[in-house]
């Protein structure tokens, strides 16, 4: 482990494609995630950014933090914009108007731009099969406009448009599962990540970029401003979210679920919630309710992982069987395609292996 800590930083791409001097809040977990993601992608990329924190901190005319070609159009259309970029690259490459070779197409947005206002354009782009990577930087509310609730805000959190009061707990609904929605499009690669686990994040973004076709990475982006915790506890908060099962890290490769970190025993959610001002108003019975929900979701995820590991398909009634086979053959096709795309790049379970992938 000591060796690992010496070598690991040297394996990272030293290039910084989001320049310092931007206006992110102190302790911002999101800009950290962007920085890692760009390191993983390298310089050969075109990015479309939705309106939001990352756009507003980085691109005040006449300055820019972006060292890659970058375009911001509107709030809800980053996926549609990148569809156009990808199609244009395809046409121009075919006609010999740009040098041959693949340029990664990256679309990014916050949780509002992804799971609320931009869900339609994202779904359209995933369904049409454009060759692009979408990264959702999820800080669990509209932080840029002043901490309003989104469909990605977790149950019980206090926000300015779902404040707790005498007759309300605050956020009354459960967090929308965007990664599952992306996976439901049967795209080749879906993953969750967190900037508290930089090597894992970079490995996943790299994998997403290299996959042919659409890929989706959902990144938990800790936000001290909106979550109301110490700016020095950003990394700790991300780790607590992962280790308590509030935000499990996993991959869905060609429909197969795989946990990145499996824990024999999850941490309780209480310490994670207690450190944040947005959950301060919660009483013990409400925390218990959240704990139950987290346990339920974790078990659901584990069963998806277990199903993915099954060698033999589960016996299904005859009536559904034919349908099941159809879906299976489609999945296999996608799998063989993905295999061709990246030989000898098998995901490992241990962090050590993860770090090796960071090198490439």
């Amino acid at each position, binding site marked *: 482990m000591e060796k690992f800590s010496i070598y690991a930083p040297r394996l990272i791409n030293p290039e910084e494609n989001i320049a310092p001097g931007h206006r992110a809040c102190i302790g911002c977990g999101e800009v950290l995630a962007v920085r890692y993601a760009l390191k993983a992608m390298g310089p050969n990329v075109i990015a479309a950014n939705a309106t939001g924190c990352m756009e507003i901190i980085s*691109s005040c*005319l006449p300055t820019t933090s972006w060292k890659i070609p970058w375009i911001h*159009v509107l709030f809800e259309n980053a996926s549609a914009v990148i*569809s156009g970029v990808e199609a*244009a690259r395809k046409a121009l490459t075919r006609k010999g108007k740009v040098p041959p070779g693949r*340029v990664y197409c990256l679309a990014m947005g916050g949780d509002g731009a992804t799971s609320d206002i931009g869900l339609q*354009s994202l*779904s359209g782009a995933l369904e049409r099969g454009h060759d692009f990577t979408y990264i959702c930087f999820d800080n669990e509310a509209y932080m840029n406009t002043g901490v309003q609730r989104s469909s990605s805000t977790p149950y019980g959190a206090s926000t300015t448009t779902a404040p707790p009061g005498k007759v309300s707990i605050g956020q009354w609904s459960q967090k929308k599962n965007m990664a599952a929605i992306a996976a439901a499009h049967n795209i080749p690669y879906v993953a969750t990540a967190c900037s508290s686990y930089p090597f894992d994040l970079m490995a996943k973004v790299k994998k997403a970029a290299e996959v042919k076709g659409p890929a989706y990475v959902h990144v938990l982006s800790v936000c001290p401003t909106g979550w109301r915790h110490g700016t020095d506890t950003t990394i700790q908060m991300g780790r607590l979210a992962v280790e308590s099962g509030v935000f499990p890290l996993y991959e869905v490769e060609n429909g197969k679920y795989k946990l990145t970190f499996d824990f024999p025993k999850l941490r309780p959610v209480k310490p994670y919630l207690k450190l944040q001002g947005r959950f301060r108003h919660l009483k013990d019975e409400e925390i218990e309710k959240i704990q139950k929900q987290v346990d339920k979701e974790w078990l659901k995820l584990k069963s998806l992982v277990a199903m993915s590991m099954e060698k033999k398909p589960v016996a299904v009634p005859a009536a559904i069987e034919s349908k099941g086979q159809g879906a299976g053959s489609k999945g296999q096709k996608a799998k063989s395609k993905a295999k061709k795309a990246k030989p000898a790049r098998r995901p490992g379970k241990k962090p050590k292996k993860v770090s090796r992938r960071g090198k490439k």
Partner: protein
Amino acid sequence: MSHRTGLEVSHAAAEAVKLAHVDVVAAYPITPNTHVPERIAEMVANGELDAEFIPVESEHSAMSACVGSSATGARTFTATSGQGLELMHEVLTVASSMRLPIVLSLANRALSSPLSVWGDHSDVMAIRDCGWIQVFAENGQQTFDLLLWAFRVGEDPRVSFPVIVNFDGFHVTHVIEPVFIADQEEVDRYLPPFKPNAVLDPRRPVTMGAYGPPFIYSETKKAQDFALHKSKEVMLQGFAEFEKIFGRKYNFVETYKAEGAKVLLMVIGSFAETAMDLVDKLREKGEAVGLVRIRLWRPFPQEELRQAVRGAETLIVLDRAMCFGTLAPVVSEIKAALYPEEKRPKIVSFVGGLGGRDIRLEEFEYMVRRGSELAQKGQEEIYETIGIR
């Protein structure tokens, strides 16, 4: 040499797009524009056109994909109608402000509610101030010609603005007309390859779509408006070169038998062709009646308009849209343009042809009679509606 052939005008539009060697088309179905993207999709599917066709999930995404594509340096086209244009509205302002020369063929359609798939000019009038260059075609030939012109002018680095070519839904889109379809060689001579100033390319990274705080926003807007006004010179060059190669002449404001006319009709779009028939009829009778048609709607050709109506006593303006609560869109533009004139014609405003309703020859004749009468005694209502029950 170009060849004359009979075809549906929507298909003629698709032919122009094909001859322009377009790289990317993103479109969403909406009546009555659908035949344009359908025909293009067919051309792409058959390998007749080497382009990427993106069948997007909405018009908002259609225009967004066009912005991405044009910013990457691809020649980009889309087509829409009515509600589709309104859904694009938010992205239209971005496309023009980012100076992306996307070409849009707009099959003009009424706006809901009540739902109407039929033609009028409500759609384009609602987005008239979005910063796009906007021209009106009256028939199939003009639609074909103006689409080629749109690519050439819009993509000129001195212009770099998106262009809307308006042609009336059903009245033009769905009719079969004889159209001179140009040769590839002629089109290539007229339309140089698209070479934008800056594109999204990892070899030379640029930031597009940065935000403008108060200390810089006004300057960006002033620069944009200045450039749009200035682009008129290039537009005229585009028309002149078009005439040289294809032999057909266009201008910002066009007249028909307007010399010495005491009464002038002013029509925008395909209904001008019916108005021409009326002018012929009245001229035969010896009446001094003429027609003015507005080809260029944005940037508005104020000076050219003043010249076109100079000497007339009455100007009868037909609008195919309303601006609820105030003057109709075309007439308000005309009144503003003519206000500084010392001697100007009396202006009478009519609204008609809404939601696909036809305006026939006899109704145009009524407009001339009634218009002359109202010019004498003064129009009390801000507009009169043609054929209303």
